[in-house]
């Protein structure tokens, strides 16, 4: 079980790193995707460790993946539209809002 926690923590931290440090919109989206997957893995493995037939963890894991997919597609659409408007994927140049 500890190994699963460690793997999930590593995935999550790599995802956070991508979101916080990277300047490219697509890399930020990949970071978010890694975080979603790490939480899904956590849920599924917790359900596996429980071993009970309730299936609640598996259900939530599936919902997470579906929800993550929805968010991801919306983010990619937004990123494409941002590229059309600003001509770049670099977040440090997409800064009209400030203050």
């Amino acid at each position, binding site marked *: 079980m500890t190994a699963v926690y460690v793997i999930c923590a590593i995935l999550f931290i790599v995802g956070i790193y991508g*979101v916080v440090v990277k300047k490219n919109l697509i890399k930020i989206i990949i970071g978010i995707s890694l975080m979603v997957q790490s939480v899904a893995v956590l849920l599924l493995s917790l359900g596996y460790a429980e071993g009970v037939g309730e299936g609640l963890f598996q259900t*939530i894991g599936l919902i997470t993946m579906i929800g993550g997919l929805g968010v991801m597609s919306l983010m990619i659409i937004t990123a494409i*539209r941002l590229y059309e408007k600003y001509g770049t994927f670099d977040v440090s140049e997409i800064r009209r809002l400030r203050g």
Partner: protein
Amino acid sequence: MSVLPLLFVVIPVAAAAIIAILYRVWERSGDIFTNIANLALLVLSLALVGPIWRGETFSYNLGDVSPLGIHFTIDGLSLLMLATVSIICLAASLYSVNYMERYTAKPRYYVLLMLMIAGMNIVALGADLVNLYIGIEIAALACYALVAFGVEHEYLEASFKYQIMGTVGTLCILSGMAFLYRTAGSLNMAELHGILLGQGLSPMLLFSGILFLAGFGLKAAYMPFHAWLPDAHSTAPTPVSAILSGVFIKVIGLYGMIRVFFCIFEITPTTSWILMVVGAISLLVAVLLALGQWDSKRLLAYHSISQMGYVLLGLGIATPLGILGGLFHLVNHALFKGLLFLDAGSVEMQTGTRQLKELGGLNQRMPVTGTTCAIASLSISGFPPFNGFWSKLIIIIAAIQAGYLGFAIVAALGSILTMASFLKLERYIFFGSLPEKWQKVKEAPVLMCVSMILLAAACLGIGLAFPWIIDGFIQPAVNAVMMLGA
């Protein structure tokens, strides 16, 4: 078993489906069905005030397999949220009829709006954490799209920022849920309270508590996590801004926080301190940031953070009076902040600008907007007899009673600074001399005026009738939070 809770979900989803089907053949179906649905929701929630006050609760189970079924419950706190959501959404949908003409694809806007309302209602109704999460996800997805609805530079930028922060928040909530379920073996809120009552705080529970605090804090935009809020709330179309600032951050963020930290975990002195400190920091820092803003909607967005600080400060005191003050301020803030956003939007619609320095003297040309905005400004600054005064007074009295003199001083100071920044707003938009170029500005269309007058009347009415409102509407919610009811 009562079918009533289900109606709060079915009505908005059905309206969304009907609009999505009909709008190609009937252009105005969006205007009509959205308003009818919101009116029905408001009537339904107001009709429930009496039974809830008498101590009844309503519940509905959709599928009866214990952990997997969907359980909806209406208690005092849920009803408080549902009624607040309904009145703000009714005002916003009335306002949208004329305001959203500037955007293309108005029917799609209505579909997203109704889905967002459905998501918020699911959050308010859900009796277990899974429903809470699903509601948050539905409402948040619709909300990201609504913030980006203008598909111009600023809209997309604000929406992207919000999507990133919102998703991280959702994931924190979800991991918190996973650890909680691993420890306690249930996700039903009432069961969880029973299971965790005797237990101490194991490391895993502590970790899940921290994750919940971070997740809901991100959703409610408390101070270290507030960066997305001013962008998203100021760039979204105005009716959406009103819903976002008025109810969305409360239902998606604060309501979950209340359920987790009061109804599931017991409130301990440590949690109480954390909540109060976060509230006080948000209250004071956000109001200082708001003072420096020259964009009317951005100024209001910063005030949302600050006023949410008041709510959290009141709740964090954790005495019955403090919780009462916090929940009362939550309702009041929804009303006057929604109204302020609608006023700022109607000024923007008629003049085409939100910059305070370019405006002035509009009281002569837009009397309804000017008057309602004055009422809302007086409410938020805490002038008697308007509603904001009473809730701030209750919070300050509760803080003094509980011995937190420092927090009471912070709350009073925040109120003075709020007044200063609303003096600025009023002075630059509605008072002073009317510039040459705004001589021909007209009052906003009738339906927009109706929605603003509705909210202004609610602000004044609650201020005048506050003993009855507290007794009939807020007290059942306090009982639900304190687990005294039912």
